């Protein structure tokens, strides 16, 4: 305990003063070399050629066999290289070779494997041939490290070695090797093993010749690496180190799109052998956390709890900046770096940023180089004209912020369950009910209120930018819209009421005179959900229909949709590849959840034989007038039947600072980081200008504290004198004070779950 209390008094006055002074000096000088206090990373980092980005949810799977989420692909697409990629600039979306010397060659075969003409009726299989470049090497990795005798150094790590590492790069040696055709076929074989949980195995089993057999064979018991390497899928052949082929059933031109996805990225067997060690698995070190690839970057740090760090792959030399393909309306500066070797940025740091609020603030402070725009920061950043054109606000322009906007190949819709007795069915009355609701749900208003104009109202299932999308005087949704000079305009509400009356619900009343009650299921529970749900209710209330909202968690919602236990529901679809087939199949009968035991993607259970038949044709056709005519007929049919309220296609809007260059929106391509460029010096300059700390409140605070010391001391002196004079008078006061003392709550102050201290 404090043994000499007598000295305390002088100590407290002087001590407080010195403490404050020291603290102020410390904060003024010690923080940062450039006078900025609130930079969320170090000053040195800010000066290097490092991009600062963020992730909201840690990516769960970085293993390409498993990974399917956008946030995961944002990382691994920089590391892995499937055979093909999308051209950075070209529209419509165009594939180009990535690790190949040329685009794959196709051969058409009949059932016996004999080559046939492309137009032949007998074509039963298609074979694709891939020729690899020979100058591609993996990034340095411990899995490749060998000793002088050529034995692998780290395929059997000792406990000691394990104790010392937190990531593969902590091992002192590393190696590399050339990319081989076997690495690609190994990836396909891994896909077939059910324990790897590949999300596309179901699709590929039907497609790749022999994969189903192989999958059933190898999934029964775990294989050794050797067995895996030696086994083979019938339709997948290695012809040489740089040449392999894949054979698929039937004709399916869309297959090439799949080959630009990470599922088909090469996997070196050395990595499998390395990561198979139990000691590494225990330390969360696996192919799922530390990928091994040939791309422009390698993932050096992966701490999903805090940050991830991509560093350029020193062996990368096969990519150059594109020199052509830029659409006419785009800024020609984007081609300024044409021909330069990639990547242009040395390092990318992704920081964990869960909340949109701090993320937005940090972007405005210049600490993130780019940012999306949340609905709440939107009207601060972007103004929307009545035609729906977006432009930056003057405030953003002054900061030199740039922006980019593109309609995404995505559709969000409000589905009707076609299996439902009230809203479903293909007879006239049910169709009219759906059409009436489709007119009443004013998607344009939704887009303007909740998305601030960041979207386009859908005319049918196919989004803009995808072959088959049409919105002109001759081809638009004339069930819901009528054509005006400015484009399609939603039909008046009276027509909807008319339709509703014809459907048997005059003024939204059932024949019994009760208001028609419909149920709307949604997984929306966020802060914004409340107003959105109210909005939906208002839309149907316009027709006199009562909408009961059943907001649930995502699991329950999915379960209900899968069980077809919904009436109205919200759902969306993101293009896997830029082809109309990928959207039309959302309405094909064999995908209906009731026909596929819940695993299909046709959540509204739309099942029209005519549509299904057309769909089978469209699926196999290459683009051309014939295909276009068929797609038109299909779209017309579903527009009439109205199984969805067509909803909207969102526009992605991204903002970025003017020191961040070569940014271009390509929603299909994921490996675009290598094209971007940074001017770090300019960044530091702006950060300094925007973040000078406001110091005066510190001084005011210090003064206030010092000013309060004197009255306290004098009050104490006075009291001390009083105590000496009248001890008895004091006691009365003390007793009163003691009475109040019990006021402190003993039960509630320690309660968990309340207040920030919990």
């Amino acid at each position, binding site marked *: 305990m404090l043994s000499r209390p007598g000295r305390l008094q002088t100590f407290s006055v002087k001590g407080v003063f010195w403490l404050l002074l020291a603290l102020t000096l410390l904060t003024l000088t010690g923080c940062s070399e450039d006078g900025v206090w609130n930079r969320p990373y170090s000053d040195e980092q800010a000066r290097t050629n490092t991009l600062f980005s963020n992730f909201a949810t840690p990516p*769960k*799977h970085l293993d390409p066999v498993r990974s399917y989420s956008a946030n995961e692909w944002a990382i691994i697409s920089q590391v892995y290289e499937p055979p093909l990629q999308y051209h950075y600039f070209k529209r419509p979306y165009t594939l180009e070779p990535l690790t190949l010397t040329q685009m794959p060659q196709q051969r058409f075969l009949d059932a016996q494997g004999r080559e046939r003409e492309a137009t032949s009726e007998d074509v039963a299989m298609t074979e694709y041939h891939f020729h690899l470049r020979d100058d591609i090497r993996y990034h340095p990795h411990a899995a490749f490290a060998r000793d002088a005798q050529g034995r692998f150094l780290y395929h059997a790590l000792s406990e000691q070695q394990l104790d010392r590492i937190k990531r593969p790069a902590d091992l002192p040696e590393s190696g590399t090797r050339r990319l081989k055709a076997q690495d690609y076929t190994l990836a396909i074989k891994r896909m077939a093993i*059910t324990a790897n*949980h590949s999300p596309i195995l179901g699709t590929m089993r039907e497609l790749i010749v022999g994969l189903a057999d192989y999958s059933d064979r190898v999934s029964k018991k775990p294989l050794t690496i050797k067995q895996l390497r030696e086994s083979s899928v019938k339709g997948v052949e290695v012809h040489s180190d740089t040449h392999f082929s894949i054979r698929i059933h039937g004709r399916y031109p869309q297959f090439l799109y799949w080959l630009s996805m990470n599922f088909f990225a090469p996997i070196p067997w050395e990595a499998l052998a390395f990561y198979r060690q139990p000691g590494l698995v225990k330390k969360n070190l696996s192919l799922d956390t530390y990928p091994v690839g040939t791309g422009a970057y390698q993932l050096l740090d992966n701490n999903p709890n805090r940050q991830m760090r991509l560093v350029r792959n020193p062996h990368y030399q096969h990519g150059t900046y594109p020199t052509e393909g830029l659409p006419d309306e785009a800024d020609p500066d984007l081609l300024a770096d044409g021909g330069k070797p990639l990547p242009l940025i040395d390092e990318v740091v992704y920081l*964990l940023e869960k909340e949109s609020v701090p993320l937005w603030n940090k972007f405005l*402070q210049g600490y993130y180089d780019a940012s999306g725009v949340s609905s709440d920061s939107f009207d601060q950043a972007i103004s929307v004209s009545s035609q729906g054109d977006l432009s930056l606000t003057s405030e953003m322009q002054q900061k030199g912020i740039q922006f980019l906007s593109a309609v995404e190949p995505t559709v969000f819709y409000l589905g009707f369950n076609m299996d439902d007795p009230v809203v479903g069915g293909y007879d006239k009355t049910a169709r009219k009910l759906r059409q009436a609701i489709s007119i009443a749900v004013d998607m344009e208003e939704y887009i303007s209120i909740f998305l601030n104009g960041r979207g386009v109202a859908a005319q049918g299932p196919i989004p803009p930018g995808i072959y088959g999308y049409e919105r002109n005087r001759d081809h638009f949704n004339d069930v819901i819209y009528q054509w005006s000079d400015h484009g399609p305009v939603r039909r008046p509400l009276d027509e909807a009421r008319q339709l509703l009356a014809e459907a048997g619900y005059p003024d939204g009343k059932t024949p019994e005179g009760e208001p028609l009650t419909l149920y709307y299921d949604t997984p929306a529970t966020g802060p914004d959900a409340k107003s959105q749900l109210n909005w939906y209710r208002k839309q149907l209330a316009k027709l006199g229909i009562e909408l009961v909202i059943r907001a649930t968690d995502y699991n329950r919602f999915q379960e209900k949709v899968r069980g077809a236990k919904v009436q109205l529901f919200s759902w969306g679809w993101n293009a896997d590849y830029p082809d109309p087939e990928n959207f039309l199949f959302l309405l094909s009968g064999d995908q209906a959840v009731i026909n596929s035991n819940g695993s299909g993607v046709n959540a509204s259970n739309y099942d029209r034989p005519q549509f299904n038949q057309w769909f089978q044709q469209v699926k196999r056709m290459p683009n051309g007038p014939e295909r276009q005519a068929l797609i038109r007929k299909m779209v017309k049919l579903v527009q009439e039947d109205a199984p969805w309220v067509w909803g909207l296609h969102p526009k992605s809007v991204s903002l970025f600072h003017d020191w961040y260059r070569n940014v271009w929106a390509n929603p299909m391509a994921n490996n675009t980081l290598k094209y971007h460029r940074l001017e770090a010096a300019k960044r530091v300059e702006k950060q300094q200008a925007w973040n000078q700390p406001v110091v005066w409140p510190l001084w005011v605070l210090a003064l206030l504290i010092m000013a309060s010391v004197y009255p306290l001391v004098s009050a104490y002196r006075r009291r001390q004198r009083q105590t000496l004079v009248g001890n008895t008078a004091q006691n009365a006061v003390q007793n009163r004070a*003691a009475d109040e*003392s019990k006021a402190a709550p003993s039960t509630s102050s320690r309660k968990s779950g309340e207040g920030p201290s*919990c």
Partner: protein
Amino acid sequence: MLAYMVRRLIYAVPILIGVNLITFALFFMVNTPDDMARAQLEAKQTTPEMIQAWKQSHGYDKPLFVNNESSGLDTVTETLFVQESLKLFMLDFGQADNGRQISEDIQERMWPSLAIALPTFLIGLVTNIALALLIVLFRGSVLDTATMIVAVAIMSISGLFYIIAGQVLFSKMLHWVPISGYESGWEMWRFLILPVAIGVFAGLGAGVRWYRSIFLEEINKDYIRTARAKGLSEIRLLFGHLLQNGLLPILTGVVVIIPTLFMGSLIMESFFGIPGLGSYTIDAINAQDFGIVKAMVFLGALLYIIGLILTDLSYAFFDPRVRFDQ
């Protein structure tokens, strides 16, 4: 003493089993393993085979409480509950549903949690005691009444307000500290200063009132009166006698929360982007990751029980009259 400890530890076992029982029952009332598989697989199209494979590899293919397919003792032991509980008691937290090793994550995230909870706790304790002493010094005066009203006011404001206002004022307007984030090493303090300050401030109301009442109870005791009668100055009285004697109830009161500091603070961590165990838990709830939820509930319960035992021990340590031997 040792016997007492052992008894307490044995008594903790049924409690932990009960805790597990509640967790399992609540969680599986909401989620079937099929749901979990679907949520984790994240595929656009999930086939029953994929779900079966996932359940098998994560051990969710066993029945929950009773296994009808086995015989004898196995009907109970060959179940999800017993298998998973046993692992928890061995402190093997296993694998999260998203595939990561939970122990590794807990070890990693414990430090940020501590980095924010420990300073908040210690600085809070010191500030609360200091202010309480100051107020006791001026007991019965206007200062006393005013401070008590301010204390109630501080208590009456939702913690969310402090955080939102603090971030807006100090980060957005004054540019003093980063809005959120975390860094290991020395740079850490720049990220911690705001959440710690807010945590201390928000706890001030309840804390000062609580310690003031303890000191006031103490100050009316005879030894203080005697000391005062001897002409000791008030400050000597407070720091010399009062603090020394008041510290005992304070210490025994706060011991219970020390172990739970490891668990971190749910709200603080998620607002300030600190990658600790609190935000780990909240993320797991939102993602309905049962592997993590059950591990964290178990850990929380365990730490709570340790806290209770520590409290008893601290009584025995500070107060020689308390003995556990009989």
